[in-house]
């Protein structure tokens, strides 16, 4: 079983999900018979006091909302009338919503394109950077810079770049290359790739840094042994580097899929799901049910779709757990 040494809280929680699934609670130490008196004498009160913030905050803002999510998904709720139990009616409404299959397909397209754009390139960059003999810090800083830009600023900046007029930033660059102006996010066919391009720019730096850290963990003796056996650079990459990185490669892939399954900011700010629903995603649909509906909020449908999303992502985490487990016990 793989064990994580240390993780930053910068990974968003969906990414943390997969990693943290690997860590199991530790067994409690042996204890002695206790009575309320010994409990009090041994500092039971202060033990409780230290747990109060955690229990209060998680109770109110994590455990309670999880339960409430499931309840809401089975109810018809708005602020006007008392909630009514409707069973699985919300789920059936969502599944029969004509936008539902479109949103699922778009989200899958986003995830797929993000894998094509954002999965191999960071590995190549990390390999090149890790073989640098100096100024690795400069490369790493340049790679990571887009990640620290607030996502809203990144999207709005790219919104300017994607200006479809002939004097847009990207269209000016294309003009230098002798290519005519492109419609970018205004066209049904180019909107989704444009969103993925910005998202890759904004996120790939984190993946590169993860690969870089993993590459320093590859034992250099393996490379030397391979060299002695007459392996060239490409053979060493294929037979040493990639096998040594396979756990990290799997982790980053699953994390990316889990992350992109929740894509919201790009379609919300770039296109509002348009043109002609070409970029409506699952999370945008949830948002529209709950907060963007002119006919009044449909919290039940939003909760039902959220439950379906959690179930799907949990399934992914489990597959991932299985895979890492079987690989590490090999």
């Amino acid at each position: 079983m793989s064990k994580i040494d240390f993780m930053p809280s910068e990974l968003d929680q969906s990414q943390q999900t997969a990693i943290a699934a690997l860590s199991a609670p530790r067994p409690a130490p042996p204890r002695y018979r206790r009575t309320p008196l010994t409990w009090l004498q041994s500092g039971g009160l202060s033990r409780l006091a230290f747990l109060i913030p955690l229990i209060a905050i998680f109770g109110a803002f994590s455990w309670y909302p999880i339960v409430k999510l499931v309840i809401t998904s089975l109810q018809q709720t708005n602020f006007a009338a008392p909630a009514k139990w409707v069973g699985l009616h919300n789920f059936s409404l969502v599944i029969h919503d004509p936008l539902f299959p479109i949103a699922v397909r778009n989200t899958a397209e986003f995830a797929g394109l993000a894998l094509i754009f954002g999965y191999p390139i960071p590995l190549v960059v990390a390999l090149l950077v890790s073989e640098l003999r100096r100024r690795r810090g400069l490369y790493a800083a340049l790679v990571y810079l887009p990640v620290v830009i607030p996502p809203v600023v990144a999207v709005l900046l790219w919104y300017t770049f994607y200006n479809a007029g002939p004097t847009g930033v990207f269209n000016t660059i294309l003009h230098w290359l002798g290519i005519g102006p492109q419609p970018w996010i205004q066209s049904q066919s180019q909107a989704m790739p444009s969103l993925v391009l910005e998202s890759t720019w904004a996120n790939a730096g984190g993946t590169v840094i993860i690969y870089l850290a993993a590459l320093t963990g590859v034992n250099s003796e393996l490379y030397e042994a391979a060299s002695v056996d007459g392996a060239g650079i490409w053979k060493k990459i294929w037979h040493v580097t990639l096998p040594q990185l396979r756990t990290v490669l799997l982790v980053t892939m699953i994390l990316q899929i889990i992350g992109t399954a929740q894509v919201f900011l790009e379609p919300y700010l770039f296109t509002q799901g348009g043109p002609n629903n070409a970029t409506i995603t699952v999370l945008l649909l949830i948002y529209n049910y709950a907060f963007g509906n002119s006919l009044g909020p449909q919290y039940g449908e939003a909760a039902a779709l959220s439950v379906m999303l959690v179930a799907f992502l949990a399934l992914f985490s489990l597959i991932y757990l299985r895979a890492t487990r079987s690989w590490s016990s090999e």
Partner: protein
Amino acid sequence: MSAIRVRRRREHPKRVTEVPTGGLVLASDWRRPSVKWGLGTTQALLLVVLVIIGLGPILWLVKAAITPTQDTLIQPMSVFPHGTDLSNISNAWTQVDIGLYLKNTIVLALGSWASQLIVSTTGAYALSVLRPKWGSLIMVLLLTTLFVPPVVLLVPLYLEIVHPPIFGGTLENNYFAIWLPAGASAFNVVLMKRFFDNLPREIFEAARIDGCGPVRLFVSIVLPMSKPILGVVSLFAVLASWKDFLWPLLVLSNPSEQPISVRLPTIQSETDLGVFLAAMLIACIVPIVGFLIFQRTILRGTGLGGALKG
């Protein structure tokens, strides 16, 4: 697999100093002209590409923020065709009131930071050092929440904030609606607990024998010993809060209370492009400067995210 994988990876002590290279290309390889020129050129090209891709958009934003709007619209890639226009920056302060939203962002980030730090340190201390009877149950409940991405809880959390059960009233347009849920990060607690678990138990025992109570043990011994992890959690808490958009958008409907990232999309259509770009630049300055100062900690923290022990 292959004949080259002769032995399993050994446990080797963590390298204190940085290794010269990743080790894939050996020193003997570097002496070969084809490698030296081929790889050297590729790496130099990579630097050019990274400067264009990583730094380029930000440099463009800096340039456009001090360029007259008409120039940015008509010749976006020319550098100051008709001189600079610093009034964009001052207009961002006067017309858009960017200072107020910057202040809101800072206040929200500081509150979220405090909330995350209080919950994670006290909780992890209780679970790791004090170890109450039902600690393992709480740990299981904490780990379960890691399987639920926060975005799917938007609807129930929103309903709870607008109509809090038991207490009544509403937390809408109240900063506590941001600060309190920010504390519910199971990830921070797990991270902190793992760090506390690795602190030497002997010190705690010695302190206890010397009559040090749980509170003093926490304040005078555990916290001072945990500065590295406190630093990492603090940095990422502030960065995450600075980046947050959807949740503050939902619960802070009053414009004068909104952080800069919520405000920017709203003012986009009604603001002169030059002023808007200046406002975006101002929103980036704090995270970029923070990154440049704490670069090592942030990159190490991010990189270790994937460092799984196989």
